[in-house]
């Protein structure tokens, strides 16, 4: 593999949601992200998968510069994204862009498509003609030029999302964060958007950090997948390997929960793993391994110590007391 384009080291993000006590007030923290270390390689699609409260979106927002980490670092091509105290410099903003989940709110409904696309163009390409740059962007994403002066509410959900992708690409970024870009779309429309994203990745040599809860989708497009549960990463592996040999009990539970439409897929689901229990609130993460309230294989050690991430076999990492490295 090529060298990493993005490195997260022991990344933590706590949000204070309240205080306890009256005299000795202690903050109540939600550990949205709690010690995550990941590497993204140039040109890959890295799938970050998790359920609500897993912290996957918080990671996306930190990489995009919307939140500052509580501790830990994120390096982009060797540069610390949060060096110094102030805002992120414009040349880094240019390199890292984000596409949001909700096509309804990610475009300004009171401004035309051209005006929406002009925002990044004016900031990052002040010397270029805005209209011709807008036309080139529309062509890049296969939208007709007649859309320029339309308003977002005249477009379908899928088309809006495609405009949002075009806007992210306006700055010629190298890393694009995709925060559930298709989960609000109907499945018959999703394919078009995903295929567009894949084509753009090849043509423009983009790296994707793909945030999603849809493992079936990741099976088809991700080069590597990481699973998050309550602010921590449970398992990281290459796409195909991940689905053939899921190691962490939570990964197995997730896979067995997916509603599938063929027997062939049914065979891939870990049959013994019956989903059970509720996801604990991120305010009250259980001590030890955070999955110990739902894990069917739970034993004493799980209640006391949080397991370490180990490399089980080449490029396949997991964090579970049951699992031992192969050699």
């Amino acid at each position: 593999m090529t060298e990493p384009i993005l490195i997260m080291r022991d990344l933590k993000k706590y949000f204070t949601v309240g205080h306890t006590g009256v005299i000795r007030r202690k903050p109540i923290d939600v550990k949205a992200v709690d010690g995550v270390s990941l590497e993204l390689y140039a040109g890959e699609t890295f799938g970050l998968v998790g359920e609500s409260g897993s912290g996957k979106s918080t990671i996306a927002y930190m990489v995009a510069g919307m939140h500052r980490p509580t501790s830990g670092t994120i390096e982009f091509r060797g540069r610390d994204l949060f060096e110094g105290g102030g805002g992120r410099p414009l040349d880094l903003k240019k390199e890292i862009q984000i596409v949001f989940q909700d096509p309804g709110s990610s475009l300004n409904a009171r401004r035309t498509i051209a005006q929406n696309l002009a925002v990044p163009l004016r900031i990052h390409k002040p010397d270029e003609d805005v209209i011709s740059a807008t036309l080139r962007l529309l062509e890049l994403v296969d939208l007709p030029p007649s859309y320029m002066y339309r308003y977002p509410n005249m477009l379908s959900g899928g088309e809006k999302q495609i405009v949002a992708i075009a806007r992210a690409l306006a700055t010629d970024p190298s890393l694009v964060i995709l925060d559930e870009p298709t989960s609000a779309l109907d499945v018959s429309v999703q394919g078009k958007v995903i295929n567009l994203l894949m084509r753009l990745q090849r043509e423009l040599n983009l790296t994707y950090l793909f945030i999603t809860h849809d493992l079936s989708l990741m099976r088809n497009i991700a080069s590597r997948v990481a699973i998050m549960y309550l602010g921590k990463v449970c398992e990281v592996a290459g796409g195909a390997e991940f689905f053939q040999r899921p190691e962490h009990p939570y990964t197995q539970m997730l896979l067995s929960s997916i509603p599938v439409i063929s027997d062939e897929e049914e065979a891939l689901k870990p049959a013994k793993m019956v989903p059970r229990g509720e996801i604990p609130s991120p305010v009250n993460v259980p001590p030890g391994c955070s999955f110990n309230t739902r894990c069917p294989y739970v034993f004493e050690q799980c209640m006391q110590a949080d397991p370490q991430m180990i490399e089980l076999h080449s490029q396949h990492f997991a964090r579970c007391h049951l699992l031992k490295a192969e050699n």
Partner: protein
Amino acid sequence: MGVEMTSAVQATQLTAEDIARLRRESRRENWGRAWYKFSRNPLSLIGAGTIIFVVCLAIFAPWIAPYPEHVKPFTDFANASQPPSSQHWFGTDEIGRDILSRVIYGYRFSLTMGVTVLAIVVPIGVVLGLVAGYFQHRWPDTLIMRTTDIFLAVPPLILALAIASILEPNLFNAMIAVSLTWWPWYTRLVYSITTGLRNEFFVTASQVTGASTSHIIFREILPNCVSPIFTKMSLDMGWVIIIGASLSFVGLGVQPPKPGLGTMVASGTRYLPDDWWISAFPALAIVVVVLGFNLLGDGLRDLFAAEDG
């Protein structure tokens, strides 16, 4: 043409004229759509028609009013207190002035008052609301919103009365007084919209891409506030006209012999019920213009609601 121009036509082949045409067509299409929706509501059409009529009356008053000289100091006791007739459609008042002419001129004062007050109030209120909303939970929010609370605690009519009685009682001071108490409503309206919008993804997206704060506030958020602001402005015109008339009624607005609608109603009350037309027609004129603005405002609100849905 806009429909046929599909992706078969490559964007790079478009000439400047093509783009200009596209823009014209889209604009026409958007306006056409808005007009279609607006025109589907008969009440808002009536409202808009009334407003246009009244505005024309006010602008062209010297040419429309049958007796323009009756607006200046004028007496004609021979024709005093005439009931409505073909010469004086609305009758004449206690000193023989044509009421129709005075009502037409009265609209000038009412509309001037409404427009001036809104012209002072809206920009101030909107900018403060945008700033406070965008910096929610920070000091500009606290400073601005607590100030609006203080101003909102004062009833507009009372403040207007106070100011008008301290200063000279005239239309200008009345407008200042009303403006002082009116801007917080716009601040509040825009504040509530802004606090909702600042977390929308399109705002975040411009932040991530590096847009300046003033760009986000004025180019991204403000356009989303325009429709509720217009709606409120239309409804407020009616209110401001009523307050102006009320001030004139108690003698603190338009001063006689100038023909304020409220002043005319007030002076006519002495001759009720026998010479009812002296105050009834100016009162009716107030009702018509206020109703017009309210119908228009409701129509605009429905129009904008349908657009968002």
